[in-house]
Structure formats: C-alpha cells, structure tokens
C-alpha cells in the first residue's frame, strides 16, 4: 500500500518493488536479461527522481517511471517487445509428457507466457499491469495515460485472445 505522506528511501523502494518491476518487464518481454536491465534502470531513475519527488501517489509515479523506462529500452534496442522465450522450442519430439506435476506446473506457466507474448503490446501491457503487477484500473489508466474505459477494453480483449491461444 502506498504511503502518500512519506517519501520512501531508495532501499525501501528496491526492497518493496524491485521484484514486481522485474516481473513486469519479464512478462512483457519474455527476456530475463532485458527484465534485469530494466529493473536496474528503473531503480536508478527512482534514485535520481526521489531527490525531487514530492509526496503524492507514489505507486502511480513509480509505475509511470517503470513503463516509460521499459518503452525507452524497447525503442533503444529497436526490438518489438515480443522477444521469444529462450529455449521455447524445447520438448518438441521428446518423450511423451511426464506425469510429474512440477513439470506440468512449470510448463503451464511457460505456455501462458508464450500466449502473453503473442498479444498485441497494448493488450499485453494492460493484462500484465492488472494481473501480474496488481494495479487497479484507475492506476493502470494513470500509468499508461489512457482513459479507464480503454483499460477495461484492452484487458478484456487481451483475455479473450489468451483464451483462444490457451485453448
């Protein structure tokens, strides 16, 4: 929960939000290296920004920084944010599926991640901000600078596509 009346220290931000920032970038890009770079970059910008940050909606401020840093990174690398998962051709032609439930669990999450990466960026971002980062529609609207109605529509269309892809 954001404490709107206190300015957190950089360490607190890193501790409380670092992992979420990483996961936001990983789920959007499918690339662990980019995600790690992004997390570092965001924390750097936060560190610089905290100097002039005035107490307000901290989460909104943080997630705008995060989203902008992600888009900057994508533009810099001239890469569409649809990088394939590493090794995602694994398992083709291998032995029949293992009954091992750990395997099934990990594979399921990779299937979901693959499907996520096939969504258009706007839908994927909305779904990730909602279901990975856990923001409300209002917060997503503030982060992405779009109306709440657009948030609702993108999330819905993203989920419909996921439903088709996941069968």
């Amino acid at each position: 929960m954001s404490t709107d009346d206190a300015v957190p220290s950089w360490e607190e931000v890193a501790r409380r939000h670092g992992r979420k920032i990483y996961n936001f970038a990983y789920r959007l890009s499918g690339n662990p290296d980019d995600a790690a770079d992004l997390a570092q970059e965001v924390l750097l910008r936060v560190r610089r920004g905290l100097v002039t940050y005035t107490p307000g909606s901290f989460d909104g401020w943080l997630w705008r920084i995060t989203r902008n840093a992600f888009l900057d990174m994508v533009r810099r690398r001239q890469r569409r944010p649809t990088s394939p998962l590493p090794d995602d051709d694994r398992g083709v032609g291998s032995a029949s599926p293992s009954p091992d439930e750990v395997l099934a669990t990990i594979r399921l999450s990779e299937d979901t991640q693959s499907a996520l990466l096939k969504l258009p960026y706007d839908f994927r971002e909305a779904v990730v901000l909602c279901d990975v980062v856990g923001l409300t529609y209002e917060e997503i609207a503030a982060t992405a600078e779009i109306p709440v109605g657009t948030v609702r529509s993108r999330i819905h269309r993203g989920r419909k596509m996921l439903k088709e892809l996941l069968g």
Partner: protein
Amino acid sequence: MSAAHLGELLSAYLDGEATGDEEERVVLHLDGCGACRDELLELDAARAAVRSLPVLEPAGFADKITREQPVVTVPLASAAAPSRRRVRPVAWAAAAAAALVLAVGGVGMARSGTGGAALERDEMMGRHAVRVSVDPGLSAVQIVQVIGP
C-alpha cells in the same frame, strides 16, 4: 431480441471494477444467458492463468538489490489476490491450486521416473531451479523460482 451480451463488462466484473449498477446488470443478465456464463468462465480461466504465474527473479537479484531471502507467494484459491480490489471468484480452479501444492511438495523428492521423464524434468529444473518451503501457518505456498544460471 435479447439484450446485448455483456462483453467487456464481464472482465470488469471479474476484477471487481464494475459499478454497482453494472454489477446488477451483469448478475441479472447471467441468470438468463448461458453464452455469457460460459464466457465468464473462460475469461476467469484466462485471468487465473496470468494471476497464477509464479513471481520470478534472476539468480543473485535479491542479493544485489535487497539482501533478503527471496520468497514469493503463489496465490491459491483461498488467498487474497495481489491487489486492493474485490475479486469475484467464479468456479476457481481449486483443483489446479491443489495440484500446485502437490507439485511443489514433490520438488524436494528425488523421483526417478522413466528416462525420458527424468531427463525432461532435469532440463526444466536446470532452467528454473525451484526451492520450496511450505509454511503450515499460511494459507499460501511459498515458492522461490530462479531463472537461468
């Protein structure tokens, strides 16, 4: 002609983001519309698939950033969603959640399956080293999942 189907209202409803009036409308409509009931279940499954993605971090990330033991919570059926909103549970995949607990519990055991199954599992484990602890005091399973070398 029947009322228009609910469309994106269903997603908002699932996320607890529909207004009071909208919720009423949804409930009334669902009562008489099998197509929308089906869609609600499918949307909920897609939503659940993303919400149950494990929280990840690269090896060494926690040390670099926080120094604390990286532990993440995988939401189970009864645990709170990672947000401040009300959530509208619909036919939650309790079976899948239970399977996750079992699967997680199985990690520590060196199960020797057939050659193929064991190999595939090792390959997966190599990429996603999973450490598990289950705290009986919590309603959720704690998993640490680390990507890559």
